[in-house]
């Protein structure tokens, strides 16, 4: 019974489903990108088991993308602190190679944990005695069409590609790594570093170590890696923007469902009269309309998730050097489905309620 109105009014059904699908799809894609980005950055800074990220304390009011610029002596000082198992300096430099290709260059210690954990797909790893050479991430190499032995040009310097790696973190796979010393020299950083990743080892001591670091170096701050990804790079703002756009898309789809259901109620006033006349209760009729609306929004949600995930996949294949995650977290998918059903309940409720106000005698006269 419930499904008949849906299966036998095909045009309207498909239009409503499409409307919901588009809004859910854009929500999935936007949240997938922004949450994926947070995940990526957290993965970069917390990889190899570093719990803390040490960066320069923020100058007031300056937040966006500020990565800090700390003197190198901090690294030695951190290594000397009790409770610090390992301190790994890192230089992060965004580079623009062409208009389409923006990527991150990581200045790393060639014998440090970043390099050790990489999977080499061709060529070799960085070595402590390397001069200005780079290793390219798999996606960056594919995107630029570079192979081992080729030359890439960064900051006016020609750098040979020593190896191609895969790390599984697409921010890194879309970037390049070079020896810390070479990166500093190339970009005139002297002994400075962008951030230091600190491994504490004993999770119960993380707070103590945080306090000790900040007491020892008043100009730096030690934050957990996840906080770093969220707050320092202002990815939170990106996530919020994604939510905001999604909320607008969702409101539109609530309106679409409400409109469809309101049209349905108007068109089916006589049907409501018939149902009342044959003994259906008003509650049951509300249930019928809400049920139809839920089926519509559920189907729309499924289609939307498919569209959103498909769009992400296309993006991640089309822009190989940009860190679009190719897949969406199950939580986002479940959330999107929940949202779709929410849209159905909210959009379906008012028209359904309106349906119960119908006077059967009047409704039966409607032709």
């Amino acid at each position, binding site marked *: *019974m419930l499904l*008949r*109105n849906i299966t*036998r*009014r095909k045009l309207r059904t498909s239009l409503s489903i499409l409307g919901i699908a588009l809004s859910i799809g854009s929500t999935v894609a936007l949240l997938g990108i922004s949450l994926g980005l947070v995940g990526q950055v957290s993965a970069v800074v917390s990889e190899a088991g570093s719990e803390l990220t040490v960066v320069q304390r923020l100058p007031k009011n300056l937040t966006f993308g500020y990565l800090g610029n700390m003197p190198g002596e901090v690294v030695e000082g951190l290594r000397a602190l009790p409770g610090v198992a390992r301190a790994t300096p890192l230089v992060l430099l965004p580079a623009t190679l062409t208009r389409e290709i923006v990527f991150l260059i990581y200045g790393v210690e060639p014998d440090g944990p970043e390099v050790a954990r990489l999977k080499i797909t061709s060529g070799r790893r960085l070595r402590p005695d390397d001069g200005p050479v780079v290793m390219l991430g798999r996606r960056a190499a594919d995107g630029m069409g570079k192979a081992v032995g080729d030359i890439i040009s960064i900051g006016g310097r020609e750098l040979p590609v020593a190896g191609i790696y895969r790390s599984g973190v697409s921010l890194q796979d879309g970037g390049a790594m070079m020896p810390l010393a070479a990166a500093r020299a190339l970009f005139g950083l002297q002994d400075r570093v962008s951030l230091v990743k600190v491994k504490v080892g004993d999770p119960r001591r993380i707070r103590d170590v945080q306090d000790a670091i900040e007491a020892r170096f008043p100009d730096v701050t030690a934050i957990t890696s996840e906080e770093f990804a969220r707050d320092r790079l202002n990815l939170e703002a990106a996530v919020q923007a994604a939510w905001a756009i999604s909320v607008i898309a969702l409101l539109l789809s609530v309106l679409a469902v409400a409109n469809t259901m309101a049209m349905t109620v108007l068109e089916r006033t*006589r*049907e409501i*009269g*018939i*149902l*009342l*006349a*044959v*003994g*259906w*209760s*008003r509650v*049951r009729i509300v249930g019928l309309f809400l049920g139809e609306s839920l089926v519509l929004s559920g189907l729309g949600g499924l289609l939307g998730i498919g569209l959103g995930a498909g769009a992400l996949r296309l993006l991640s294949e089309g822009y190989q050097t940009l860190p679009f995650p190719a897949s969406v977290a199950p939580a986002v998918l479940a959330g999107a489905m929940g949202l779709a059903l929410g849209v159905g309940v909210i959009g379906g409720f008012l028209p359904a309620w309106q349906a119960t106000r119908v006077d*059967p*005698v009047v409704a*039966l006269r409607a*032709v």
Partner: protein
Amino acid sequence: MIRLRGVTKIYRSAEVVALRGIDLAIDQGEFVAVVGPSGSGKSTLLHILGALDRPTAGEVCVDRTSLGSLRRPDRFRLRTVGFVFQWHHLIPVLTAAENVEVPMVPLGAPRRQRRQRALALLERVGLSHRAGHLPSQLSGGESQRVAVARALANGPPIILADEPTGELDSETGQEIVRLLAGLDAEGRTVIIVTHNPQVALAARRTLTLRDGRIVDDRGNFN
């Protein structure tokens, strides 16, 4: 057994008095025709009998139950009355069989049982071969027969028909009347509102309404 005492209906919005102090008793198994000019209150009377509408004053009792005191008029409509309307009022997206099943849904019968009963009822009105057709594929007479089958879905003791032949040619109309007359033979009370004197003649009792009053109440000895 239906009893009406002083039933008055005033439509406030239009200041129209549709029924004025109707007193009436209809026994179980009677076949009653209600005739009268347009606006005489025939349909209003039928709606009140079927608990689709409430009287402004007076009392309606069906088998000693006062309709005014019903907490769930939908349950009363479900089990006690079956409506047949002038326009067949079938649901356009449902097949003939599905339309007949509609009143059975709230009673929670399993789908297969519903379908079996619907097919049996369609067979009874001579339409078993049309069970899978949509109302748009049926003729007016066929649609009205489906509506009769639907009115019988839950085996109600009272059938209320509002101009059931109004939209049909006389021959098809007579078929419907024969169908309804057969129901009275089963002990059901059949009340039929009509303009058509021939239809009224098929009933055993004719009530004539004018300006909301019963002006004539006579038996037909045909």
